[in-house]
């Protein structure tokens, strides 16, 4: 299907990155809960078992700590594992494994060898499933020394960044977003391509305000920008794509042009990534704040838990209209 038309949904794109890389390098293996029996959380792994067989993909029991730890151990002993966690929230059950083992121990031990591990987790805010499933935990990992954090917003980016992640010799946490999985199809090059980490992408050019975002929020920001455009406000939208490493130069360049900065993320406001972005911005351009046309702002989920309610949960996360109004308050 996807193969013929070269039109890919976000999830097609990830699946195709998986396959290309597993084809290319037989050391790439993957495991997680129901990756065979149910093709992952939402068909991420469709066809992998059929194509690569039981040595290369495995269903685990429900053991998140073991999934992450095994990926680390297999990564140190000659393989290039992809550990799959259905929900990003499940990382909380394996947090020592993710944060202290995968993230810190290599540095703490002084080990210089490769640690080619990808953790792929799905974020799923906005469907009413509640904090236990829907938390978007990237801020916690940005504070970890040795992890790269990737959060794509389009099918094109999703594929190119996943391929880069699998080829990286250091641990990468890759967050896909359920809200993007089955969105509009995108044309994707039929030739192989990779997208490097640490290169933000200007998803829309504008002159009145810079809106920095990543993952599913980029889509909302773009929709808001369209609406604002109709009212003559021209927003520039910077998609960070990877949070570690973070491309602050692109942000600085954009803000120097627009004179305004709004940061938007789905995760809770207090202690969220916006704080790091703004500090990086001020460190990179210490004088810029003095000449800005309006105070820097952030828009993020309310400082409460996402409630398990289809009615309430979406209200807690920034929506297109919130972005529009915040921007209007700034220009």
């Amino acid at each position: 299907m996807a193969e013929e038309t070269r039109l890919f949904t976000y999830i097609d794109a990830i699946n195709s990155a998986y396959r290309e890389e597993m084809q290319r390098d037989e050391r790439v293996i993957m495991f997680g809960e129901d990756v065979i029996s149910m093709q992952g959380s939402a068909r991420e792994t469709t066809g992998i078992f059929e194509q690569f067989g039981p040595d290369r993909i495995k269903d685990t029991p429900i053991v998140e700590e073991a999934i992450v730890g095994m990926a680390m151990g297999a990564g140190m002993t000659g393989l290039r594992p992809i550990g799959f966690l259905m929900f990003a929230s499940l990382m909380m059950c394996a947090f020592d494994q993710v944060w202290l083992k995968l993230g810190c121990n290599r540095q703490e031990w002084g080990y210089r060898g490769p640690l080619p591990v990808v953790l792929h987790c799905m974020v799923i805010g906005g469907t009413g499933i509640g904090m236990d499933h829907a938390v978007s935990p990237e801020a916690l990992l940005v504070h970890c020394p040795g992890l790269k954090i990737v959060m794509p917003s389009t099918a094109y980016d999703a594929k190119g960044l996943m391929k880069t992640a699998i080829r990286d010799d250091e641990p990468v946490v890759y967050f896909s977003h359920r809200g993007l999985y089955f969105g509009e199809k995108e044309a994707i090059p039929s030739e192989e391509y990779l997208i490097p980490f640490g290169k933000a992408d200007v998803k829309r050019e504008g002159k009145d305000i810079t809106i920095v975002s990543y993952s599913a929020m980029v889509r909302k920001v773009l929709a808001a920008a369209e609406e604002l455009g109709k009212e003559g406000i021209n927003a520039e939208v910077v998609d960070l794509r990877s949070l570690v490493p973070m491309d602050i130069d692109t942000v600085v360049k954009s803000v120097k042009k627009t004179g305004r900065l709004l940061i938007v993320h789905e995760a809770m406001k207090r202690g969220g990534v916006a704080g790091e972005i703004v500090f990086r911005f001020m460190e990179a351009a210490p004088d810029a704040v003095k000449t800005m046309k309006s105070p820097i702002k952030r828009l993020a989920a309310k400082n409460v838990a996402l409630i398990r309610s289809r009615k309430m949960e979406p209200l807690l996360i920034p929506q297109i209209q919130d972005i529009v109004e915040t921007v209007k308050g700034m220009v």
Partner: protein
Amino acid sequence: MEIPKEKLLEMYRNLVRARILSEKLYEVFTTEGSMMQGLHRGLGEEAIPVAVCANLKKGDYYKPSGVRMHPYLFLREGFTMRDSIASECGRDLEKVGGHQTYVSPELGIIGKSGVLGEDAPMYVGAALSAMVRKSDQITIYTCGDGTANRAPLHESMVVAAAWKLPIIFMIENNQYGMGTSVKKSYAIEDLSDRAKAYGFPGQSVDGNDVMALYEVIKEYTERTRSGGGPGLIVAETYRVEGHMVSDTQLYRPKGESAEWWKKEPLARYQKSLMDMGIITDKDVTEAEKEARAEADKAGEDALAIPFLEYEDYIKSALDVL
């Protein structure tokens, strides 16, 4: 053991009510605007909460199995079918002073975790609390076969054993965790062997046989209540439906589900009671009719409950900034 006739009848009525709730939940799920958060129902597994509730005293702590068995809490004193439906639909639930998930320590439920198994240590804490308070409350914590493999279950059993806490762990073995068969996730045949690692008694029982379940649970709860420490009961049953509505169930051998459905608890129990001369066709019809009426009313009442208002939630959630 001779089970008193009133107990048998009480369990019968409850099993009918539970089954009819299973059906009602599907109806509500497919009702436009119900806002139900997914449907993972316990069709065919209802005998377990029925037999547990028949052994609980007021104040005991009980958590049914994780994903699909929560609604059957209405079988306990203080709860209603309406609460169950309202909870599944995210409606304002006065039991918790606000909305949503059953939580009511006085009524013996202290919440459930969407991250499966993470609620086990909480229930161990409730058992510890009962012991420290010198109360005779016991705790029954249930999880699925898939969840039973998880880390917090282990640590929970470790402390419960070391401190001889008044808690019974139950595994509702419905043979699958999502698409993964127990045969793949365990190298043991009898899941109650897990108890041997901790040093408390363990036993497997037919989870579709109300009377067998009742007897084992009675034995275990009595021992635990009189200071005998923890126990593990494994109830063997079967998830006759997919994990959730969208589940294509390709992982499941053809016919397996139909084979198991022949062993579903309601028909079996009904037949036993009839054979024992305890109920008649008329009782069956009546029980069903009553339960149906209860469920219909509960559905209506539940969907009439307003959602929590946004501002109320924010305020009540104590936004500390």
